[in-house]
């Protein structure tokens, strides 16, 4: 039994609308006090957290760890370690590994490997359809028993509307959240960038806004009639925010998330075929980016995720349309999100909620908050520390980031999972 006292941090706990300098007392794996140190509390370890932020551990709602199937790019061990270094205590992984997570055995295997590495928690999503083929439903109830926090078809469209409806109905029977990335496969075609001035200038196959909005409209209609609790993952269009906001105002049980890079970049950043900016869904216009930020601010889009996709060096060394899509994002999720608060686009509590309690609520885990009695998953962050993302500083096995070489503010100094310190910055906390 270890008793830990964290002193003097600014504690930001949006789930409890708490934002104040306070001491936090932890007994074994549980938070026992936030505020004054409880009488008679004898700390085995006292952490001086003066000038640091104390936040609930970040839960990244969309991160690919590449294991099983693409261990040459990254592994569960490498990416959970990288995540822990960046204040992330939980990672939700899409089922599009190889093999696909469409059996309880696969889900168990992923969780076992994550447990063995002893870093950030891994919450697998199960496949919505067998092999993600969009034809046959998976054994969702058993996937849920095996620890899947939701079901998803990854980035693969379920083009058969009836299959999608049945999948939603069936998932709702067991109150399993359905994760969607709505895209109309016909409009998607072989597109690689947003349809607009950049696709026209560069002559790249384009993805129209309607590829997403048609998908969102269809899925909202199905959510309404199936009763499924749905989460729309990785939206890219301002128009989608409007549609989701409208659905939420009619009490449809639908939440939404956006990848952090969609809040900071837009189609113009692609410049001259810069494949580091190739992502899916694609970067859209500056107007879309503003609308997405506004969606986070108003709460329609309640989650910011990394959409972490580590790749090997060669994956981006190809003509744009053939290069791999995606950014390795766990290292930068927190710092980039904080950048939206320093320039006043988002209040700090909204930004922190979008990384912690909101994603926790969506996957139904009792974490992401600092209530008394809560599991002590948390991180300490120096919000003013300046650092540069470099190949050396990047912890993810993937080095594919358009933020490489950029100055960032906000560095994780310590990460704790269930009261155990799994990462600490040796400079701030010498042994």
């Amino acid at each position, binding site marked *: 039994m270890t008793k830990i006292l964290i002193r003097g941090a600014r504690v930001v706990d949006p789930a409890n609308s708490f934002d104040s300098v306070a001491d936090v007392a932890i007994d074994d794996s549980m938070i026992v006090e936030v505020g004054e140190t409880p009488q008679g509390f004898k700390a085995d370890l006292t952490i001086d957290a003066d000038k640091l932020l104390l936040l609930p551990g970040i839960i990244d709602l969309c991160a690919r760890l590449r294991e099983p199937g693409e261990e040459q790019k990254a592994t569960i061990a490498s990416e959970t370690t990288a995540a822990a270094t960046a204040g992330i205590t939980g990672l939700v992984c899409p089922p599009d590994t190889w093999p696909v997570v469409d059996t309880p055995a696969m889900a168990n295997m992923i969780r076992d490997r994550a447990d063995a590495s002893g870093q950030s928690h891994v919450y697998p999503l199960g496949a919505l359809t067998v092999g993600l083929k969009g034809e046959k439903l998976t054994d969702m109830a058993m996937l849920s028993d095996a620890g899947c926090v939701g079901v998803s078809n990854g980035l693969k469209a379920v083009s058969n509307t009836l299959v999608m409806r049945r999948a939603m109905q069936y998932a709702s029977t067991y109150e399993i959240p359905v994760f969607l990335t709505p895209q109309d496969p016909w409009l998607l075609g072989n597109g690689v960038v947003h*349809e*607009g*001035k950049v*696709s*026209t*200038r*560069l*002559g*790249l*196959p*384009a993805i*129209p806004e309607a590829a997403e909005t048609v998908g969102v409209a269809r899925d909202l209609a199905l959510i309404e009639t199936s009763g499924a609790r749905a989460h729309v993952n990785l939206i890219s269009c301002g128009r989608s925010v409007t549609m989701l906001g409208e659905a939420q105002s009619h009490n449809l049980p639908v939440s939404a998330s956006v990848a952090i890079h969609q809040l900071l970049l837009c189609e113009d950043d692609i*410049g*001259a*075929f810069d494949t580091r900016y190739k992502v899916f869904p694609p970067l859209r216009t500056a107007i879309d980016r503003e609308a997405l930020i506004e969606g986070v601010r108003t709460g329609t889009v309640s989650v910011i995720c990394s959409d972490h996709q580590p790749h090997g060096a*060669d994956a981006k*060394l*190809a*003509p*744009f*349309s*053939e290069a791999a899509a995606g950014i390795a994002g766990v290292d930068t999720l927190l710092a980039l999100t904080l950048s939206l608060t320093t320039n006043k686009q988002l209040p700090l509590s909204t930004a922190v909620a979008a990384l912690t309690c909101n994603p926790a609520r969506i996957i139904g885990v009792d974490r992401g908050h600092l209530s008394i009695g809560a599991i002590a998953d948390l991180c300490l962050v120096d919000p003013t520390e300046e650092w540069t993302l470099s190949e050396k500083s990047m912890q993810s096995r993937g080095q594919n980031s358009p933020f490489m070489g950029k100055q960032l503010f906000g560095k994780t100094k310590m990460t704790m999972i269930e009261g155990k310190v799994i990462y600490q910055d040796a400079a701030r906390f010498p042994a």
Partner: protein
Amino acid sequence: MVPSDSKIQFDHQGRLRHFLTINGLPKETLVQILDTAESFISFGQREIRKVPLLRGKTVVNLFFEPSTRTRTTFEIAAKRLSADVINLSAARMSTSKGESILDTARTLEAMHTDLFVVRDSASGASHLIASHLPEHVRVINAGDGRHAHPTQAMLDMFTIRREKGGFEGLKVAIIGDVLHSRVARSQIHALSTLGVDEIRLIGPRTLIPTEVEAMGVNVTSNMAEGLSGIDVVMMLRLQRERMDGQLVPSEQEYFNRYGLTDDKLSYANPDAIVMHPGPINRGLEIASSVADGDRSVILSQVTNGIAVRMSIMAKLMGGQEDP
């Protein structure tokens, strides 16, 4: 401001070292290329057709997409400049299958080649090669996906200048499948840099790219309206596959609306010239009577292609003086 897709074309002293896109090239550079080409044009008629500007240099025609006229004219152009020419026409497997395009280029570079002429079906392929090969290697884009075909546009500009004496006051129409056309994109950049009066795109909405007006063009779908007052008619090739993609209902309907016939040509100015980058689909985008008629300059375009490509190669390799 130099557009981002153009920056890579210049060296530290601001000299042109690659020819990948016309977007962002200054007018003087284009005029200089045309002027030098003018001095090369008489070469074809001479008994000795060679100049030693590229003697001892190795030019690789790296064509990942089939081509007859472009590859041939590049080969002739390089040989007239006394370069050693290697033709490599390779079918390329996309993505992870087979050797990557970059590995192929690096392998050839290791054999001490000086200039790559690259054609590929992927937009940005020549940018990719140019940005990953050593400083001394030059790259000419001979067509990348739908993005650019800058030497074609330059030979078109050369042909226009020869026929019309200049660019000022000219109204130019580009007709057909602009969406898939690298030629059209390069033509638009060249024409606007050289200062024509107006560029009009004519075609059905399925073949006109989104927000193309941002490139400084006007768009119409009506041939009578679009050709009115036009001095230069630039036709584009319509690939027959477009019918399968539901971009155009049928060849008949396309020819009915956009096929250039003598009747439709009569909407343009009486001295308007007709151009086509080839290969021509007779009876689809253009009637034979127009293609072979006295206002067609289609074969001059091919002839001019050699002089213009000589001029561009000479410029990149440092021989900028007149021969």
